[in-house]
Each structure stands twice: as structure tokens, then as C-alpha cells.
């Protein structure tokens, strides 16, 4: 029995090959997309994790306002839970290439090779520096101007200081090309020299640095090894070490502060005693001096006294020594990469729903048609006394066979080609080793079982439906569905106005209800996928222009360093006013705080504008939906939208602002303003003073400039960055550019969704139209005999398709709208709010593309209609 059964099945497959392929294809494609997108995120993360582990990416990074000395390091070494500790030097310098100069970050390479060797560069070619004057440099970023091994790099300091004060030589020879786990994105950070933007990094031997203190300390935790980067487990594990490090930071920063004060005091004391001696001497010798000499000396003493007094004042207002314990999340590349991976993961949540639905649909129709065609065979088998179970077996095997082959193909492509495609796409943005492709056995088996279940269950269902009929009625070919009066005919007003052919279409639409339903579902799925894609593009793609064009309406922003004196701040302020393109400026205080409502807390940045009325000219504070402008009042605050969502605050709510661990200030929320990037709380200077009991010390200047060109930007930023006390200069449209570049990855997602939608609609429409044509072959032959031209025949058949496609598309827009909302909600990261609107154009394009796909299927099937042989088709008995 087995052999004949299989022979029979193979003959069946051959006979109905396109149908078999349709089942196989929908399974293969569904699984490819599902597995592929699902695996992209973990593959990306595991690749990064492996890279980080292999190259010992730090878990913590300590920075201090005064650097670190030997004692600092000794006391940190004593902390429990540290695996490796690497103090490091780092300076920014300039390199000239042709006519442009670039900022390069120079990091130190320690000479150990144990666990204390952290953030190890990955050698792409060449070797690491072994002696003085050698360096390795990164590959990318200088695009056209990549350095080659053997080339020489000449460094300058970029300011008035001498570079040779900091490093032992100003000329380095490139001995290797590297990548670094510290820099996986394009972002290299900001600098206070050059144009303020770091272009690339290089690494030299630690001994080539001549700095008195270390700039930073990299630390790895001993308990983080077993957990993967980007997991909560990792975040939790390193928490204990963070606590210990913060404790040391508090203690040591105080000690350092006292040390510095002490040193300064000693110097002052020395100076004072020097002065005293000098004055005593002067008293002794004054009688021998001329008047002029006397005057000179008195003058000198006065200056010296003043100097000493100034120094004393300075000690009084000596800025506190601050230590920061930073972790990987302060690394832009680390975070950006995670976001990119998570975005992929969010998309993977849409696929199963749509594809499972469509797979069931295709199996039902295809196998249903197969069973219909074989009624007589089934009847005969039944009459011959075969058990139902045996008869079903054939169709069950047929369906399972298609889904197993399809499933294997899908799994193979899904686990390999698909993630690689994305990794390739992302390689333009992230520098990482080759993607690690994981194969998840359990996942693969689960997916496979699901696929086989879906197909075989639909096969069994349709089979049993037929088998339940009595044998005699099975032996007769299924009667064509009789015509019926449809609802529309009862409305003569409409019906009588319809053209004849339209009436036919209307009848057919309602006649084949299951086909109606299936086409609508399939097409809806297609349109929904397209809409999700375009909606993602709309919501993510536009936040850049919204944030840096509509919300931030200033062109440039200058941040100053902490603890500037009034005159230093004035200096910077004057410098800005003298820029040729200068129009207006606004002083702001920016600092980070924690706020909360009830049990929910979030950290955010507080912004205090000097001029509460003028802030709307720089930062638009308004409601996203109504566009209603907000005015900053003296007793209430304004929150950004996402921040309000995070803590669950509404207008009128009383939230609290934390000051230190214990103090909580209560304030009322007067507005929730549109904002996409980071969290902000806006408050007036008066309120700030009331709460904190000090006047705000402004540390940011937002500047409006008249139209400026890129070349001017460089000049402006160079002139400001070089002045004392400036921390960074950023231009809104540079931010916009960076942002747009990062966001562009979403285009790949859109592309994938379009391809998926195209394939989906093709399979659905092809299968259904194909079956439709086979079922109505006599009808089509008849109208051909009547003398319908080819065009008329195809429009007779396709008009229904068009209408079904349109209806499906409309449903798809609704489905897509909600799916998009869901996906965007899931893909959103904490500090970012995606746009909330889907442009009308996206709806239009989704429908149009669906129509194009449908049209394509119709063109493919046109041949089938054309090739219907009238004589043959009409010869068979009805």
C-alpha cells in the first residue's frame, strides 16, 4: 500500500504543481521572514557581545575633573568585584590631511597582556605599536583618506599649547589598522579643539604620553562574564560594583579636593613668607633706595599681595572635584547598536500574525480545490471500503510534504541569508566583526511544527468536510454553485443603474463568499505590511526634522564647562555676539535631575531659560496635537511628552523634583510639550531660585544665526571651541544629519516589508485567481465563444479581483494602522519618542503598491485566460 500511495501523491504533486508550490512558497516565505527577522536581533547582539568579550570592553569607565593619580588607582584596585583595571591616557590632537584638519583622539595602549588590558583594539592588519613613535589607527571614517601602514602622521595640539608637552613625539608611524569595541558607531564624540568633532581615533604606547595624571580608568567586573551584553541580567549584575565604585568615588574625590586645597595653601603660604621676607628686606634697605625704586617696589608688593589674595579667593571657590562612574550605556555606539537591533525585533512581532493567517488561507483554498477536483476518486475509495483515515492520509501527506520542504527552505534562508542581509545593511553604520549566525534548535523545531500543523490541519478539515457527504453524491461532479439573487438587487435604485457587466461582477462577488473573504484577508495583510513599513518611516524618519527644525529653532548651541567665573562666561558670550552671522542668543541652565509622580520616577534634564518669554523663539513649547503654545509661568513647569508619559503625568498634576536623596520639591505641571529626543523639564529662573535657593548658573547658550554655509560653520566652531571654558559647540543641522543617517537604517526595514508584502500578495492573489479561473473555465470559454475580445474577457474576470483588492486594501489600512501603532510603540526606546502621525501619502502609496502587485498577478495569469481552449473547455460534461 505504501508504495502506491506515495506514487499517487507524487503524481498528484506533478499534476497540480503550481498549487503545491504555492503552499510550499507561502510556508517558505513566511518562515524566512519570521525566522530571519526574529534572529537578526539576537544575532546582532551576540556578535556584539562576543566582540566585547573577546576584546574586553570595559564595564565601567571612571572620569574625574582632575584626572587620577597613583593613590586613586591603588584605592580603586582594592574594591571587590573588579576583574581588570586599566588607567588610561588620552588626548585630542589635530591631523592635517591635504587642506583640512581633523581632530583625532589618541588613546593609550598598556603594556600588559592580562585582564588589565581592557578595550583591546581588534587588529585588522599590521601589528600593535611596540616602541615609541608607533601607532595604530582605525580604518573607517576618513573614507577617502584612509591611512596605510607605513604612512606617517604629524600631530599638532590644536591650541596654543605644545603637543610635545603631552606626548613624547609629534610624528607617529602607522604600524597597524584597528577597530575598537569602544567605537562601533560612527560617532566619535566631541572635542574642545578643531571644529569640535572627533573624526577618528589612534592608539599609541602608554609610555609615549607625558601626562601627570591618568584621564580615565577602565574597569571590568568579575561577575559580568557569564551574562550577555544588552540583557537585564548584565545590567543587574554590574550594579553591585557600581555601588562600590561610587563609594570610592565619593571618598577619593573629597580627599583629592582637600589635597589640592592643601597644596594650594602651601604654595600661598610659601608666597606669603617670601613676600614677608622681601618686605622685611625692603624695610632694611629702603633708606638707600631712590624714590623711583621705592615706588617700583611698593608697586610690586601690592601686585604680589593681590595675587595672593586672588589665589586665596580661588581656593575659597575651588570647584569640587567630581568623579563620574560611567558604564557602557554612556557609549553612543553601544546604545545605538542596541536600538537598531531592537527595532528589528519589534517588526518581528507583526509577521507571525499575518503570515500564519495567510498560510492557513492558502492551504485551505489549495487543498480544498484539490479535494473538490478529486471527489470521484474519494467517492470511489470510499465505495471500495477504504477507511476515511486512509483517504485523508493522501492529502495530509501532500500538505505536510509541501510544508516540510517549504519549512526547511525557510529555516535555511531565515537563519542565514536574512540576518546577513541586515548585518550587511548595518555595516555602513556599525563597525563590528562578521555577524555570528546562531542556529536555535528549539526555535527551528517549533516553527517547523507550527508550519506542518497549520497545513495538515487545514488539509484534514477540508478532507473531512468532503468525506462526510454520502458516497453517491461524491460520485457526481460537484454541481456548480447555483446563482442567487443578491441583496443589492433588492435595491432597484442602485441595481438598475449598474452596467450589465457590473451586475455580473456584483453577483460573482457575493457568490463565492469564501473567496471573497480570503482575498480580502490576504490583500489586507499585504497592505497592512506596507503601511507598517511606511508608517515606521514616517514616524522615525521625521523626528529629526521635527526636533532640529520645528522644535529647536536655533542654529547653534554652545555648552560651557562647569564652574566658570562670571567674566569667563561673559567672554564666551561676547565672542558669540561677534560672529558675523549672529542674530540673537538665549542663556539657559541645563542640568540633569530626577523627577517623579507617585511611584514612577525618571531622570531628565532641567532647562531654565534666562528669558521665559523669549524661549519660544528658540525652543517651541507647544501641544503636539493642538499646536497650542505654552508660556512658562513662575510657579509651574512644562514637561516633554515622552517624559510625561513615562511618569504618567498630566497637565495639572503635582510632580516632585528630587534634590539629593531626601529633598523633594513639589511643582505643578502646566504644559506637556512636543519633543522627540531626550527628556526635559522647563522651568522659569524665578521658580528655580525659589526651589534651589540659588540663582541659576547658565551653562548653555542657544544661538540664532542667519543662513550659514558648512565652511562657515567650521570657522565659527573653531573660534568658539578654542576659547576657555567652552565644552562643546553643536549645530542643529549637524545633529539633524547625524540623526537622519542613523534613522536611515529604517529604510531597510521598509524595504523588507515591501518585499514581504509583494510576495504575500503575489501568492495570495495568484492562488485565488488561479483557482477562480479553473473553476470558471467553462464560463470563460462560453463568453469567448460569444465573441468577447481578450480585453473584455480579462476585465470580465478581473473586475472582481480589482474590487476585492480594493476592499482588502481598505481593511488593510485599518489593520495596518493598528499594527503600526503597536510596532512603533514597541520599537520606541526610552529616551526617544517616535512621531505619532502617519502621512496620508503613506496610506495612498500602500494601496497603490498593493494594486500594482495585484495588477502584476493579473498580467501573469492573463496568459492562462488567453490560453483557455474553448473547444476543450466546453467538451467536458458540466
Amino acid at each position: 500500500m505504501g508504495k502506491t500511495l506515495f506514487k499517487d501523491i507524487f503524481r498528484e504533486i506533478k499534476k497540480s504543481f503550481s498549487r503545491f508550490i504555492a503552499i510550499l512558497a507561502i510556508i517558505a516565505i513566511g518562515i524566512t521572514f519570521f525566522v530571519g527577522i526574529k534572529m537578526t536581533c539576537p544575532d546582532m547582539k551576540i556578535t556584539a557581545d562576543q566582540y566585547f568579550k573577546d576584546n574586553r570592553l570595559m564595564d565601567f569607565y571612571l572620569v574625574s575633573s582632575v584626572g587620577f593619580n597613583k593613590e586613586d588607582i591603588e584605592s580603586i584596585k582594592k574594591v571587590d568585584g573588579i576583574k581588570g583595571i586599566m588607567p588610561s591616557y588620552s588626548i585630542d590632537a589635530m591631523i592635517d590631511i591635504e587642506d583640512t584638519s581633523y581632530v583625532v583622539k589618541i588613546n593609550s595602549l598598556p603594556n600588559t597582556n592580562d585582564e588589565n588590558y581592557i578595550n583591546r583594539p581588534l587588529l585588522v592588519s599590521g601589528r600593535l605599536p611596540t616602541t615609541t613613535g608607533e601607532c595604530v589607527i582605525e580604518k573607517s571614517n576618513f573614507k577617502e583618506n584612509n591611512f596605510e601602514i607605513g604612512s606617517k602622521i604629524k600631530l599638532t595640539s590644536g591650541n596654543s599649547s605644545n603637543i610635545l608637552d603631552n606626548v613624547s613625539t609629534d610624528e607617529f608611524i602607522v604600524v597597524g589598522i584597528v577597530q575598537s569595541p569602544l567605537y562601533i558607531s560612527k560617532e566619535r564624540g566631541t572635542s574642545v579643539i578643531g571644529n569640535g568633532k572627533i573624526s577618528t581615533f589612534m592608539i599609541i604606547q602608554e609610555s609615549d604620553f607625558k601626562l601627570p595624571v591618568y584621564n580615565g580608568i577602565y574597569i571590568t567586573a568579575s561577575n559580568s562574564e557569564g551574562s550577555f551584553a544588552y540583557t537585564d541580567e548584565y545590567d543587574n549584575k554590574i550594579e553591585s560594583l557600581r555601588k562600590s565604585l561610587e563609594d570610592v568615588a565619593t571618598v577619593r574625590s573629597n580627599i583629592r579636593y582637600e589635597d589640592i586645597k592643601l597644596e594650594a595653601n602651601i604654595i600661598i603660604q610659601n608666597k606669603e613668607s617670601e613676600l614677608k621676607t622681601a618686605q622685611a628686606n625692603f624695610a632694611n634697605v629702603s633708606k638707600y633706595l631712590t624714590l623711583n625704586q621705592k615706588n617700583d617696589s611698593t608697586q610690586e608688593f601690592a601686585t604680589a599681595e593681590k595675587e595672593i589674595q586672588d589665589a586665596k579667593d580661588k581656593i575659597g571657590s575651588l570647584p569640587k572635584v567630581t568623579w563620574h562612574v560611567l558604564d557602557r550605556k554612556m557609549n553612543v555606539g553601544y546604545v545605538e547598536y542596541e536600538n537598531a537591533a531592537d527595532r528589528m525585533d519589534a517588526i518581528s512581532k507583526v509577521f507571525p500574525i499575518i503570515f500564519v493567517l495567510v498560510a492557513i488561507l492558502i492551504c485551505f483554498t489549495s487543498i480544498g480545490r484539490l479535494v473538490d477536483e478529486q471527489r470521484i476518486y474519494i467517492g470511489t475509495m470510499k465505495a471500495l471500503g477504504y477507511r476515511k483515515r486512509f483517504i485523508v492520509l493522501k492529502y495530509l501527506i501532500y500538505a505536510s510534504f509541501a510544508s516540510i520542504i517549504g519549512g526547511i527552505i525557510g529555516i535555511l534562508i531565515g537563519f542565514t541569508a536574512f540576518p546577513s542581509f541586515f548585518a550587511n545593511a548595518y555595516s555602513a553604520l556599525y563597525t563590528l566583526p562578521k555577524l555570528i549566525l546562531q542556529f536555535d534548535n528549539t526555535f527551528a523545531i517549533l516553527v517547523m511544527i507550527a508550519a506542518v500543523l497549520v497545513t495538515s490541519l487545514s488539509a484534514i478539515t477540508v478532507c473531512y468536510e468532503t468525506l462526510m457527504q454520502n458516497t453517491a453524491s461524491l460520485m457526481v461532479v460537484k454541481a456548480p454553485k447555483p446563482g442567487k439573487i443578491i441583496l443589492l438587487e433588492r435595491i432597484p435604485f442602485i441595481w438598475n443603474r449598474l452596467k450589465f457587466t457590473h451586475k455580473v461582477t456584483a453577483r460573482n462577488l457575493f457568490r463565492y463568499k469564501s473567496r471573497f473573504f480570503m482575498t480580502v484577508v490576504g490583500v489586507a495583510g499585504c497592505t497592512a505590511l506596507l503601511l507598517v513599513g511606511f508608517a515606521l518611516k514616517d514616524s522615525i524618519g521625521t523626528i529629526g526634522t521635527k526636533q532640529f527644525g520645528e522644535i529647536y529653532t536655533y542654529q547653534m548651541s554652545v555648552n560651557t564647562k562647569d564652574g566658570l567665573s562670571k567674566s569667563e562666561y561673559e567672554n564666551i558670550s561676547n565672542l558669540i555676539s561677534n560672529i558675523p552671522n549672529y542674530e540673537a542668543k538665549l542663556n539657559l541652565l541645563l542640568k540633569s535631575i530626577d523627577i517623579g509622580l507617585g511611584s514612577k520616577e525618571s531622570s531628565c534634564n532641567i532647562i531654565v531659560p534666562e528669558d521665559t518669554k523669549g524661549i519660544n523663539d528658540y525652543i517651541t513649547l507647544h501641544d503636539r496635537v493642538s499646536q497650542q503654545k505654552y508660556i512658562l509661568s513662575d510657579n509651574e513647569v512644562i514637561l516633554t511628552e515622552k517624559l510625561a508619559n513615562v511618569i504618567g503625568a498630566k497637565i495639572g498634576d503635582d510632580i516632585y523634583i528630587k534634590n539629593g536623596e531626601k529633598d523633594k520639591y513639589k511643582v505643578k505641571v502646566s504644559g506637556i510639550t512636543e519633543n522627540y529626543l531626550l527628556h526635559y523639564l522647563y522651568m522659569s529662573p524665578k521658580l528655580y531660585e525659589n526651589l534651589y535657593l540659588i540663582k541659576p548658573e547658565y551653562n548653555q547658550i542657544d544661538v540664532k544665526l542667519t543662513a550659514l554655509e558648512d565652511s562657515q560653520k567650521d570657522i565659527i566652531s573653531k573660534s568658539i571651541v578654542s576659547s576657555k571654558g567652552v565644552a562643546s559647540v553643536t549645530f542643529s543641522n549637524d545633529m539633524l544629519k547625524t540623526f537622519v543617517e542613523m534613522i536611515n537604517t529604517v529604510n531597510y526595514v521598509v524595504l523588507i516589508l515591501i518585499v514581504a508584502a509583494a510576495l504575500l500578495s503575489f501568492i495570495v492573489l495568484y492562488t485565488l485567481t488561479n483557482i477562480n479561473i479553473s473553476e470558471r473555465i467553462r464560463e470563460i470559454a462560453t463568453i469567448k465563444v460569444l465573441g468577447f475580445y481578450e480585453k473584455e474577457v480579462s476585465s470580465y474576470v478581473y473586475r472582481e479581483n480589482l474590487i476585492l483588492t480594493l476592499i482588502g486594501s481598505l481593511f488593510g489600512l485599518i489593520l495596518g494602522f493598528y499594527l503600526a501603532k503597536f510596532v512603533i510603540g514597541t520599537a520606541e526606546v526610552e529616551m526617544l519618542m517616535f512621531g505619532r502621525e502617519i502621512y496620508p501619502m503613506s496610506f495612498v502609496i500602500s494601496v497603490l503598491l498593493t494594486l500594482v502587485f495585484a495588477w502584476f498577478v493579473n498580467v501573469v495569469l492573463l496568459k492562462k485566460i488567453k490560453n483557455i481552449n474553448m473547444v476543450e473547455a466546453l467538451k467536458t460534461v458540466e
Partner: protein
Amino acid sequence: MNKFIEFSDIKKTYKVGDIEIHAVNGVTFSIDKGEFVIIAGPSGAGKSTVLNILGGMDASDGGNFFVNEKEVSKLNQKELTTYRRNDIGFVFQFYNLVQNLNALENVELATEICKKSFDPKTILEQVGLIDRLYNFPSQLSGGEQQRVSIARALAKNPKLLLCDEPTGALDYTTGKSILKLLQDTCRTTGMTVIVITHNLAITPMADKVIKMKNGKVESITINETPTPVERIEW
């Protein structure tokens, strides 16, 4: 004077594997305008094939033929469709009505595309179905369905009505009434009608009887005085 239909040495060969089947093997005949013609012969003689070629549904692979002085055997696909559309009415053994359309609409399906067509309702009245206009095929008997099918063919006002065993699936009386309908149509409208039948008993009703065998014309008989079908018994 040229005949309305000139069929000369028409051939049609089917290839099944290595075997060539000469379904129509050199058929020649001519038919006058307004004639009622019966084509008879045993099963497999090639009758349907001839009719299909004549109706422009099938192409011949040898010989040529003219209908109304137009060389149909030379027409391309599109011209053949125009020919079917304007000149030909077909009636099949199995009616071939569109299940999803009622009687009236089935007729309208044909008149929709013709310029000089008749009013569908009038035609259906003529075939005696005025009460069944809005019935679907599944609600009609075989004879009634065949009437709809004839009405559909007639409504196009064709020059040539081709019927392939129109009574094959019908009982005696119904069959007879259908044949009467065809004969009357021929007489009253002057339409040329060609009917294929197995039933040699009805040949007296035709103006011309073409007997076929093995893909060839066996004989052509002309009845000077055709018998009205009512008077034929079989």
C-alpha cells in the same frame, strides 16, 4: 454566384503521442444563405470538429473556407473573435449557460457586445420563456435551459446559427420542440442554420443533409421539399 458558405478541402489533424488522428480529412461542401442543414454521422466522424472550425472556435490546418465571401480560414485570432461576435450563434449540447446569471441576463450577456442585436425579452418571449426571465439556470429544466441557450444565440442576430447536438440531452417531445424552434427561426428570419445530430430520422426536415464518416463527407443530399418537424416521428 458564390455560395454563402464555401468549405473546400478542410483538414484537421490531432497528434496524440506518435499517432496522428485525422479528425477532419479533406471536407468540402457548400451551403446557401437561409438553408437549414443537418450534419449527421457516427460518433468520431468529425462533425463537431467541422462545426467548430466553421464557427471560428478552432483553426483548421489545411484547406480554406469562405463565409459570406470572407475567407475565414485566413483570419487572425482577433478577427476570428469579431467574426464569432457578429456572424455566429452557437448552441451546445450542454447549454453552457452562465450559472450565476438568470435567463434574461444570460441573453443580455450576448447582446451586450453586439451592435445589431435583438431585444433579449422579445427573443425569450419567442422561445416561450417570458415567464421565466428571472430564473437562474439551476431553476430551469434541460429543455428550458436549451431554449435560453438558443435565445442567447439568436439574440445576437447572427448570420449563421450552429447547433451541436442541441437535443442530445433532451427527451423526445422537448427535443422536438427545440428542433421546431430552430426550423421556424430559419424559415421566418432567413437565418442559415446548421444542426449536428446522431438521429438520422430527422434528416427529412433539412434542406440539405451532409453525412460524414471517418473525417470525410460521405454524401450530400438535398431535400427539395423538407418535412416540417411536427410531422416527423421517431
